[in-house]
């Protein structure tokens, strides 16, 4: 049980990779990349969890409440912004590729070879 959340992260990473490798549609492939990235959120949040910890903000500073690790949550926030940036750029490329190649199959994007 103590390993379970980490295994979930690994599973998401593998599923994302599987989707990336087998995908036949650019938008689907880009979303598989998002799935792969989700594994990093799960892993980061999991490693920062403390049993019994509260959400990382203080409503009362007099006591010394134990919070879960705020650092990993900040990292995940950064990570999400990276995802938004990369995804939007890739989707833009997919739109253009659809116009230019007349296809959304990565197998058909074959201008460059050898």
């Amino acid at each position, binding site marked *: 049980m103590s390993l379970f959340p980490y295994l979930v992260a690994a599973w998401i*990473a593998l599923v994302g990779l599987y989707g*990336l490798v087998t995908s036949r549609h650019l938008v689907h492939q880009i979303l598989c*990349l998002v799935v792969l990235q989700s594994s990093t959120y799960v892993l980061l949040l999991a*490693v920062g969890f403390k049993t019994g910890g509260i959400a990382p903000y203080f409503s009362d500073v007099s006591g010394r409440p134990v919070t879960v690790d705020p650092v990993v949550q900040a990292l995940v926030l950064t990570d999400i912004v990276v995802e938004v940036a*990369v995804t939007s*750029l890739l989707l833009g490329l997919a739109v253009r590729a659809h116009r230019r190649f007349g296809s959304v199959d990565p197998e058909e994007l074959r201008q460059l070879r050898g």
Partner: protein
Amino acid sequence: MRAPGTLDPLLPLVVVVPLLVAALLAALSALISQHRRVLDLVAIATSVAVSAMLVVLMARTAGGVAVYWFAGLHPRHGAAIGIDFAAGSLSCGLAALTAVLVTASMVFSWRYFETASTWFHSLMLVFLAGMVGFCLTGDIFDLFVWFEVMGVAAYALTAFRVEEKGPLQGAYNFAITNSVGAYLSLLGIGLIYARTGALNMAQIGRALGHGRPGSLVVVAFVLVLVGLITKGAIVPFHFWLADAHAVAPTPVCVLFSGVMVELGLYGVARVYWSVFGAGLGHRSAITAAFLALGILTALVGAFFSYRQRHLKRMLAFSTISHAGLFLVGFALLTPLGLAGAAAYVIGHGLVKAALFLCVGAVLHRLGSVDESRLHGRGRALKTTGVVFTLAALGLADLPPFATYLGAGWVGDSASSHGAPYVTAVVMISSILVGGAVLRVAGGVFYGLGDPPREDPRLRQGATEERSETSGDEAKVPLTMTLPPLVLVAAAAAIGLLPHLGSVLQHAALQVEDEAGYVKTVLGGAAVHHLSALSPKEPTAVRAIDLESGFGTAAGALLLALGGLYYRRLPGLKRLRPARVVADTFDRLQSGVVNDYLTWLVFGVACIGGALAFSLR
């Protein structure tokens, strides 16, 4: 030297200034996007200023690593609470090379192509800031952030000529492959954070300590490595590079080949020495693994390079080959090996940038990058032809270009550490790459030999290159002939510097001094006496270095002549078996990103498996 405890304000400025100028240009786009010259001037002035600041920093950090704690958040009881820049002279030098090449390509693009709005200039400046931040940071998550800044800017720049098919495919493959690598790296960062509760590289390094590495450390190391060697184009993670380099605008190719790939490999060295080195132990196993990867990459890249007819693709594969050689230099884990790699990176960066710029001039004037179509048509481009030939000889390690020193030192250090075959690998791959580029020089600019057969793969592609520049201009303007000339001259001048060897070896020792790095960053002590693991090795230029340099260049010349005249030699006319093997290899570079990712997973599994068994 600055007094200990004070922070050098230049360190944040080298990143923040280009970022702010980029934002300023975008904010004023409505006003200035019609004034192309103003845009060019502002952007060039910015990158010149950044280069100057970095050169000053390089001199200041020669005595020891300079640390900068953002917001003044110094570590508490040996634990970092903020982000730091930890700059040694090697990282500052690499960042300076970056800024110089950005300047050169901005000057080149002055007359070269139409840019839309302020976007090109903004993207270039953020790209510069990302690369400099990546070089200087001392925090592993911050490394990921700047890696992504540089990545996203690079994807957008690759796709700059969106009207064509090639750039779309190249940028897409580039972005997908590198993002997958980056996210796997982030998984590795998560693992290492779970173990050590730290993101500062020095602190992680200290927390991992010495002794037997656990499974987590090995896996985290391999995962972090994936993103970096994908950027560094190491086989089998390299497929994206040829696609992206072949289609990006030429001024951008200069940066991709000249520094971006090298930064990936610098990241490997940085992460190894500051974070994982002591914790992993077993240096001979590490050396063996990286040597194997480097040698494979050098040979595969050189082989593909020689087979290309598309000039930009040829140069792209030659970059892969050189990336392999840089990795070999690092793999030795000696100061001389790393110094050799550094000299090689400088020499190669300058020479390769010059070659790309010359190709740009050819494209501008003759409207093609296809070797078979261009045969003999470059005679009118006199200056460009001379510069291209000189740069090609530099690529083939001809003294006094700095490349020959790099090749020599890597070979010397390998021989004295039980790997004498490295010299042979370096020579073979340099001869293949140099031979390919010299073949182009002879054929295109001097009309020697027979025109090569048309490459069926280029038939549709060649017509498409024209949108990059207006093409067929009456003459090549000075802004396009001067930058490559200056770069080639610089490559030769640096090779002649009298104390280059000892300076670079000192810089390499700074990087490899794990204990000293921890003390400087976390203890606030400036370390002047380097406690090195390996003793210094002699760096005097030896006769054998000169001989192998001249030998490689001569070999490359012979190979080039063979390539130009082989149809007149009866014995070589039909080499059927070679053709079959080559076609099989060509099919691997399929252009489909799904294949590239399969290879990536395969590569991780192989490296992971090898290190799992050898490090425990």
